């Protein structure tokens, strides 16, 4: 798709805003609609758009498979680790109340960290699924010409 100048320019303009919107949905999730699942998908959409416009190879160079795999695992670890941290502080698994000086703040902090873990995993998994399907068989670039 390398010769579509308009598409390339618009994509370049859009991608930073998609990423920013993803971060907004992620970190505003504890006040309004949003959260890790939605933010992760929006964030991944930016990478998918990049790969569609600039080719899979370039996208893979930006985030190598190794990092995607790590992101997938780290997100789950952050989620589960928050629960373990609560356990170490003497409460039940995933009881965030003890994470800060009083329960409401603890709940707030806990859900914030957990949602970050969810977002990381969802974004990584979405990109991984896209790469896995796009990388099989015909290359996207070859299909175009």
């Amino acid at each position: 798709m390398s010769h579509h100048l308009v598409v390339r320019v618009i994509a370049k303009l859009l991608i930073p805003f998609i990423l920013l919107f993803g971060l907004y949905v992620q970190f505003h999730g504890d006040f309004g609609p949003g959260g890790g699942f939605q933010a992760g998908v929006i964030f991944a959409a930016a990478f998918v758009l990049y790969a569609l416009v600039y080719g899979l190879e370039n996208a893979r160079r930006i985030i190598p498979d190794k990092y995607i795999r790590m992101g997938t695992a780290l997100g789950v670890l952050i989620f589960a680790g928050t629960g373990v941290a609560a356990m170490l502080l003497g409460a039940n698994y995933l009881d965030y109340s003890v994470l800060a000086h009083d329960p409401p703040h603890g709940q707030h902090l806990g859900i914030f960290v957990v949602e970050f873990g969810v977002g990381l995993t969802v974004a990584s998994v979405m990109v991984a699924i896209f790469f896995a399907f796009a990388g099989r068989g015909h290359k996207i670039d070859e299909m175009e010409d």
Partner: protein
Amino acid sequence: MIAAHLPALQIVVPLVSAPLCVLLVKARLAYALALVVCWVAFAISVLLLGQVLDSGVISYRLGGWAPPWGIEYRIDPVNAYVLLIVAAIGALVITYAKPSVAREVGSGREALFYTSYLLCLTGLLGVTITGDAFNIFVFLEISSLSSYVLISLGQDRRALTASFRYLIFGTIGATFFLIGVGLLYQATGTLNIADMANRVAPIEGSRTVQAAFAFMAVGLAVKAALFPLHAWLPNAYAYAPSVVTAFLAATATKVSIYVLIRTYFTIFGHDFSFEVMTLGPVLMVLAIAAMLIGSTISIFQDDVKRLLAYSSVAQIGYMVLGLSFDTVLGVTGGMLHLFNHALMKGGLFLALGCVFYRTGSVNIEAMKGLGHRMPWTMAAIVAGGLSLIGVPLTVGFISKWYLLLAAIDSGMWWISIFILMASLLAIIYVWRLVEAAYLSPSPENAPAGEAPLIMLIPTWVLVLANFYFGVDTRVSVGVATRAAEFLLGAGS
């Protein structure tokens, strides 16, 4: 302090180590971690069973939210017993896994194999431990999704179609269960199983509750491969890597049967399940059909893994037969067979893994003369086969004995004829193996030599357990009886 958190740790330890396996990348490190974790999970399940038998039901509030609003992990004699089975098989199979996985899965994917294995273990343990109906669905899907991956790793290309078929069946089964849970939530307004049980009783005439029962029973029967909904099982077991077959055959269907038991006896209560919905005769007919048809089909299989897979369909029939009596004795028989079948099929499939490791095939042709070439492995297969038939001094005999007692106790002595017939059919297919292995000459240039010790030891531990629990029945029968009494006592 740790003792109070054991229910959570049972799930969290394998759950946390699954992503760690991804991060470790190297097969050797991932294997070491998975090995340690599986044995830790086993230790936790032993401690939990001890706690439950000493001091009764344990309830753990996840996130500190009180039931019935929060998710509760609730451990009573029934699921403590199933947890122990799953964790023990998980630990033994992972010990055995390294050489077999290296050969059958291929390098580069081993760390991910162990990740899927741990996730599958997490899912199975989670289904068993949780006291929340929706949570059961989530864990069921965790274990199913990872088992689709595990099955598709088999070398034969038919592993892919087998896995796909399992995916279709498994998803429909789990979704039916989900519909059932939804209907129950509509009728009762709760998801907590203990709370649900109290609220279902007064409204048992309601059509919603009856529909929920039907959806859950059918969905779980698919997951448990109860005849005639077993179509996914033979190929999935036959073409999965040996380690996976041994693990899934010994645990996955057992856990589904456990959920079935929970649904029948705890959520709906046996009055509703067996008197209002007249489940008994239905289950009995299906169970007997499974026993006879499964055993008959397995006689004609040349692929030994497929042969044992069809025999699993028959053995699931025995378990369900025990449940269908709706008496303490019958349920004891069913629960005992749950444990005993895990021992026999675990041992047999592990031994077949040894055969595959050395000869590269599990066809009955390839087993000719194997008794002389791999004496220890073959002896394990014969011993497991004897247990499958139900020869005295093996666990197979104990569970069939209890099923016979239950049949006579319920005044249905004619059922013993079917049990006997299925056992005779088992003799035929086990004899085919013995004949090939001991009475046929080895083909020329056949590979000889035993499998590595690390594979033989777990196999023999399981096989010897067949004999140990066949003689000393205090532990297994004792726990199964307590579980059955708990189920029927709690239901009324």
